């Protein structure tokens, strides 16, 4: 049997900010075990305070497990050399675009991370060009980041991460402060990155966004509660309600119909399949 090596592996991970003062059953994250393969598109859902942002920060060694180990490729975040390598592999995009911008032009902002890595200028230039092309900001090179829209700023933050050629990009609620158009821009970009083979991990509360991924993980009450392919979860997404998470609208409609005695039982994997099922229900009567 061929053994496929996972890109990310969390084994027996426990974490707390003050492990010496907290009872272990109140730790921020408890007994997390999971693996993520190269090229996956994974969503992590969880209510406020569930530990999902802590989880994101463990992935690139911003936080280090109190117990257990996080491995990315051949390295562990538990030692300095490992973190050095892992921080180059795992790029992070955060919630507030305004907190991630450092330079006075779009080009310089993308260059910032590369300068820190000591990349020579002749290599920097094509990398910046490519990153701006991927996020659709070609022509904005000399613009002032402060004058960009929310979606454009977030795309700029993503370009800065992409230019560093990460293997994995973690989006920590990166759409939550954006308006509908900005959200759509960032979602589209996530999808494209995934199609190009990038490993994408997206932390979000939005059901609409969760089901764009291939796999959904729920973290609630500091523990991993559920880990399903998103198509399988969709049909039973009423489960999400117990953690205060959003249930997709078609599934809520189905539950309300059932309360009134109309049972539509065919399993569905997305909104369109629910539309088709309702249409059949209306047609056959």
């Amino acid at each position, binding site marked *: 049997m061929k053994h496929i090596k996972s890109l990310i592996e969390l084994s027996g991970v426990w974490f707390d900010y003050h492990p010496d003062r907290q009872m272990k059953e109140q730790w921020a994250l408890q007994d997390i075990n999971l693996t993520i393969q190269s090229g996956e598109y994974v969503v992590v859902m969880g*209510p406020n305070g569930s530990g999902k942002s802590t989880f994101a920060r463990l992935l690139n060694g911003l936080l280090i497990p109190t117990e257990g180990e996080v491995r990315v490729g051949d390295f562990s975040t538990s030692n300095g050399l490992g973190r050095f390598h892992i921080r180059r592999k795992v790029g992070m995009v955060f919630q507030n675009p305004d907190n991630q911008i450092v330079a006075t032009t779009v080009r310089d902002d993308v260059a910032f991370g590369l300068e820190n890595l000591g990349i020579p200028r002749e290599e920097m230039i094509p990398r910046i060009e490519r990153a701006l092309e991927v996020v659709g900001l070609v022509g904005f090179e000399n613009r002032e980041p402060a004058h960009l829209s929310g979606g454009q700023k977030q795309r700029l933050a993503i370009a800065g991460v992409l230019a560093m050629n990460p293997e994995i990009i973690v989006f920590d609620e990166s759409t939550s402060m954006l308006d509908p158009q900005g959200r759509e821009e960032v979602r589209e970009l996530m999808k494209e990155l995934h199609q190009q083979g990038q490993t994408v991990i997206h932390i979000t509360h939005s059901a609409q966004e969760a089901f764009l991924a291939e796999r959904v993980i729920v973290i609630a009450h500091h523990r991993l509660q559920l880990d399903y392919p998103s198509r399988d979860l969709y049909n039973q997404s009423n489960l999400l309600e117990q953690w205060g998470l*959003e249930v997709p*609208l*078609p599934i809520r409609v189905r539950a309300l119909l059932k309360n009134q005695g109309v049972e539509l039982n065919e399993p569905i994997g997305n909104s369109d399949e629910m539309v088709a099922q309702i249409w059949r229900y209306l047609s056959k*009567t």
Partner: protein
Amino acid sequence: MEISFQDITYTYSIGTPFEHRALQAIQVQFNQGDYVAVIGKTGSGKSTLVQLLAGLLLPTSGVLQVWDTRIHSRSKKLGEYRKKVGVVFQYPEHQLFEETVAKDIGFGPKNLGCDVAEIEHRVSEAMSWVGLSPDLRDRSPFELSGGQMRRVAIAGVLAMRPDILILDEPTAGLDFRGQRDLLSILKRFHQHFGCTVVHVTHNMNEAAELAEQIVLMSDGKVIATGRPVDIFRNLPNLQVSGLDVPDVTKWIMSLNQKLSTPISTEIYELSTLVDELIHRGRRGS
């Protein structure tokens, strides 16, 4: 029409290189006691509009008439006016400052000159409105969870019993359950006290669910105003403004592509939609 913006323009940093016209020739009226949603993408002028209404900015030109108060570029002494207006800013929990929850909520009523018994009464009442347990009274607001801190901040504004309640993106950053809870608090508070509510949002679901009047802004102008149905009927208008229809409308539209008799897109409540489906199912569609 008791609140009326009459040809209002607002320009930031006049005479500097950063001069920016945030509002242009705004003409809009609100009825006293209405729940008004102001929608628009980032940078459309929504926040500037409500800051004028709050008496925090003065119009560069034009007049804002609120009952018997006329606010214009040279208005002075708006102190009395501001007491009638309560403002919940974005991320209001960042503005908590007192030692205890009760003191923080009581700060507004105290400034209004309420006596001790009245402050006490209003604090208890506001805590119960936002669903904060009375035993949190003497806790430091900084020991609470993010969702509870948001409730304390909102309770502080409700305790002032404003005639106009302004909320700038009040659900931003809350998880799904937190959003639902807050919206139902706002709805009940509005119904109970009959104050005018002006709620800024880029969440179309919120606007559709709560508002009696919607003001659609784009590029510093009011593009349209009317009942939710009037606004969401005009898809091109929304798209030009970088917005979208509510999720339920989107879903009804996809269902309608298959139906010979379309379902009304004026339905915003899921229970109403379900009743309609069942009605059609029985009748044979």
